[in-house]
């Protein structure tokens, strides 16, 4: 799946995550993550985002994620929505 245009999903509300995806002509996935639980869950959030992108077949993208304590299913849903909006 190829990201054609910038797209976003999610909010900056507590327990949500704000996702923005953009095309990456250079190739590969660049992830910029901010999280209020970075020390405790930073690695887990990165893994979930990368896995979800892979499942969706996204190989090239710049992903900006601003996490406010979202659970994994929220993260997956927001990524999927942003990606589909950006197709």
């Amino acid at each position, binding site marked *: 799946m190829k990201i054609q245009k910038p797209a976003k999903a999610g909010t900056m509300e*507590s*327990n949500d995550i704000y996702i923005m995806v953009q095309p990456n002509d250079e190739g590969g996935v660049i992830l910029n993550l901010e999280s*209020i*639980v970075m*020390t*405790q*869950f*930073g*690695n*887990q959030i990165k893994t979930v985002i990368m896995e979800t992108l892979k499942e969706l077949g996204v190989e090239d993208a710049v992903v900006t994620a601003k996490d*406010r*304590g*979202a*659970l*994994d299913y929220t993260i997956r849903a927001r990524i999927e929505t942003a990606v589909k909006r950006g197709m």
Partner: protein
Amino acid sequence: MKNILGREIPEFVEGYGKVKPFGGAFNNLGEVTKKEVRVKSAVPGETKVLSTIREAIEKCNLKDGATISFHHHLRNGDYVLNMVLEEVAKMGLKDIKVAASSIFPVHAPMVELMKSGVITGVYANYMSGPVAEAISKGLLKNPAVMHTHGGRARAIESGDLHIDVAFIAAPTADTYGNINGVEGKAACGTLGYAIPDAMYADRVVAVTDNLVPYPACPIDIQQEYVDYVVAVESIGDPKGIVSGTTRITKDPVGLKIAKMTSQVIEASGLLKDGFSFQTGAGGTSLAVAAYVKELMKKKGIQGSFAAGGVTGYIVEMFEEGLFRSIFDVQCFDLKAIESYKNNKAHQGMSASMYGNPHNRGAVVNNLDVMILGATEIDVDFNVNVTTGSNGVIMGGSGGHSDTAAGAKLAIIVTQLVKGRLPIVVDKCTTVTTPGESIDVIVTERGIAVNPRRTDLIEKLKTTNLPVMTIEELKKIAEDMTGKPEKIQLDDEIVAIVEYRDGTVIDVVKKVK
């Protein structure tokens, strides 16, 4: 060494001294001696009114290394602490210890003074904002000492915390040092936390923006304790002092927790005539009060007293006759101030009367039910309200440990998960209140009772409340969030958490 809770603490901490390890909530009672107080007697005809804070500092002969104290009834609207410290810094004083009953974001200027060595020590029962963050980063020379509200009163009375000069923010003061908190543009109600300072400091300065002719009745702090009075333009911003109204939560999760909590209280058998109750000002705590109110009305119960930091909601219950009286150490809103001012059964209390374990009996000892919060609670029911899960200081006991120790039923009310962080954990980052004082935790997903309370477990079996073990509660939380990675902290100790009896329940390490 390890204290009785298994917390690793050194025997000696540089800048604090020898550590007395925590040995149980009631391990340290018995006969105590209070300190001697130095008093400079007043000569008839002498004036107490001085024109500036600087003059007061000079008259009090404040020296390098001294301890000065402040009370926190003006909360995040307080100007007095910053005003005094600014003057202290201008005078070139160094190595000052600040004993403020609580520190708020408004006190941010302290950070620069910590860096420059003007302030080298801090004592507080609660701290949030830039000062707390700076202490967590190791910017204060000596470890901060975190007291409880009752423990601070104990430390002052025993001499463990000697105050050279107490600066008392006075909403109203007269020319001979009588202070009241109910009049003036910075009215804040009772001045309970300032009373031990006034009684035991070497010198006491009232700082007021409402200097009135003698006498300033009604009197909260009497002239016999006050050396000097200084009038200033303003002691605080009313917007930061009181909230206009305190509101019950509308959040359905908070309401569910509150309703279940009221059912636990009902099942406990404590809800009968003479019932006594304390709750905080948070939305969920107030919602508990709302459900308890319904139950009391339905059953026709009149309680003996409600206590605490008092909100308008508690005042309404009192005015409706649900409680015969209020014990008030701190007014949270305008309605509480009005009631404290006008109603004799709305009784002020000092920090010592509220929670000091080493007096002839504190109000907390007569509490039936106490509603408390938690940042973390571990499987031994130990509670952290001092540091966030990232290890940074963001609070402190306040009255948490005092009320939990005294109340027959101390209930923690909290969401099971906050911003992805599970609240029930294997080990708290910091222990504020020992598990032996906590009886039950109520979350939206389930209720866990301290195994020591077999009687309560039996009583709750007769209800259809979702009672489970705390380990089960922890598993539900971790199934939702995943297991958090352990935070890495430095070895340096930045704060000592003293239990109410002056023993050390835990230490706070510097954040990396």
